[in-house]
């Protein structure tokens, strides 16, 4: 295990702890403690990360934001992986027209900036609940995943063990399910881990544009949006969610790299 991997695992452990245990031990993230004298307090023993403009405890909000930000990212990646798997498998396993059509779809999906699609979609829908937000985020992330799986499927279709299964008379669907899919999983796992970083960045960015979870929910991007105007007065309000975001995305990138080295030693 390299230093980088250890570092990534450490970050992941910390963030998981924050998301799972944080909200249990920390106070109510939406409680306004003292609007008169308690706003924009710098970090102290009472408030580890200080308080925000509403005198709410920033640590509590960071912890409950971890659940939102990590949760949305994981759901989004799961949705993207599922869609990508279905489309990618179909594109790789089918022949002729359908295969070409699906390949085209994947290429187009890759060529369109995801942020543009998301902006058009979210601004047209209006305010969305968290689950729908995660779903939309995932539904725009499938092309990269699909391309990967299509490639893997094409490679595995002609592998010896698949040919053997086919020779034994296994139906094509069963071959896809039992032989090809498991073989395609390692790169999917790598891509999904890296995809979590992308999804988190997108979630934060869209929340930063005011398209994310409505207040008083504490997503990290939303916290950044709220604190932007008071950055010079209360820098901890930006640093806390900003560093958390960097930690989470770095962890995902480092672990993705590590997984790649472990699962696909031959890949570049």
């Amino acid at each position, binding site marked *: 295990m390299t230093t980088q991997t250890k570092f990534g695992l450490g970050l992941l452990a910390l963030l998981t702890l924050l998301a799972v245990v944080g909200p249990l031990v920390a106070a109510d993230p939406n409680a306004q403690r003292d609007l008169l004298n308690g706003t924009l307090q710098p970090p102290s023993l009472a408030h580890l990360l200080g308080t925000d403009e509403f005198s709410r405890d920033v640590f509590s909000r960071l912890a409950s934001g971890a659940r939102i930000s990590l949760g949305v990212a994981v759901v989004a990646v799961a949705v993207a992986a599922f869609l990508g798997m279905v489309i990618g498998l179909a594109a790789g396993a089918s022949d002729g027209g359908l295969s070409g059509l699906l390949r085209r779809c994947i290429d*187009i999906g890759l060529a369109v900036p995801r942020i543009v699609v998301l902006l058009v979609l979210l601004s047209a829908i209006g305010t969305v609940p968290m689950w729908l937000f995660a779903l939309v985020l995932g539904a725009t992330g499938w092309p990269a995943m699909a391309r990967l799986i299509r490639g893997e499927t094409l490679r595995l279709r002609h592998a010896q063990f698949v040919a053997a299964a086919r020779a034994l008379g296994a139906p094509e669907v069963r071959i896809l399910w039992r032989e090809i899919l498991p073989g395609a999983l390692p790169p999917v796992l790598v891509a999904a881990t890296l995809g979590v970083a992308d999804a988190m960045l997108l979630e934060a960015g869209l929340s930063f544009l005011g398209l994310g979870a409505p207040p008083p929910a504490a997503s990290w991007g939303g916290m950044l949006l709220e604190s932007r105007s008071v950055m*010079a007065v209360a*820098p901890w309000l930006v640093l806390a969610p900003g560093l958390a975001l960097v930690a989470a995305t770095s962890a*995902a*990138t480092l672990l993705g790299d590590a997984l790649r080295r472990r699962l696909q030693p031959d890949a570049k």
Partner: protein
Amino acid sequence: MRWLLRRGADAFLTALVAVVLLAVVVHLLPGDPLAVIIGDRETDPATRAALAASWGTDRPLYSAVGHYLAALVRGDFGVAMSENRPVATILLERLWPTMLLGGLTLLIDFTCGLALGLWSALHPESWRARVLGGLTVVGYALPSFVLGMVLVWLFALEFRWLPPAGLLDQTLPLDASLWVRMADRLTHLALPLATMVLATIAVPFRQQRAAALATATQPWVLAARARGVAPAAIAWRHCWRPALTPIVTLLGLWLPMLVGGAVFVEMLFDWPGIGSLIAQATASRDIPLVLGAGVLLIVMVQAGSLLADLLYRLVDPTQRDR
């Protein structure tokens, strides 16, 4: 030539399908598509009727989308709801600042990013390369808007070295010397450009390093090294060119990412381009404007990758006639 035609048709088709999909999405959203376009603004029946006609929302889906495409071809992007002006006019006004910022980012990313990637592949064990590698992980993980906020805070508000926002100082006297104007442009460019570059350079850097690392272990490089060819010459002759190949594939990935960066960075620095326009239009739920800006960004990304492809083929003779 045949290649160019095919590649061009390819790019065109991709852009077309993407635009159609966006239009279909807007028309298919739950609720009346006209209501989505109007976005709850106060409108009288006459305006509503005019909007319904110009967007074709009173027709079946295929006809409405066809209508929109036909209008796009004529350069008619509809009318922005928040400003009551043609979307096309607004987009044109915003085009060149985006081209300037995006073009410079591209230039720096692809010169410095590739050079650093190559250098770090040639010195994989040096501490500088390790630091560089770590920094790019952070750079990739750091959202552009957080980076931009920190840079503004430090360099514009704390040290007061650079202006916090805007394209140039419009209050400069008209007879200001060329140097003063150049300096003004550069100081206004510094922060947004730095943010854009830092947020995007990780992609070409990592790609180039990986490619060059793979090339560095190829027999012909080892042979060259054994012959005692100078490292710089090896780098140029043997690693640089072969490693360029994946760059073209990379562009497809990297240009959309540039657009994402542009939305946040332009908004943050009040850069009057397409990116900040789409952010503002999103905030005011101006669907015709969001859609128009989206269409333009898609076309720009396609045109950009086509152009890069073309240049690459001109530079690399081995790619010709394929």
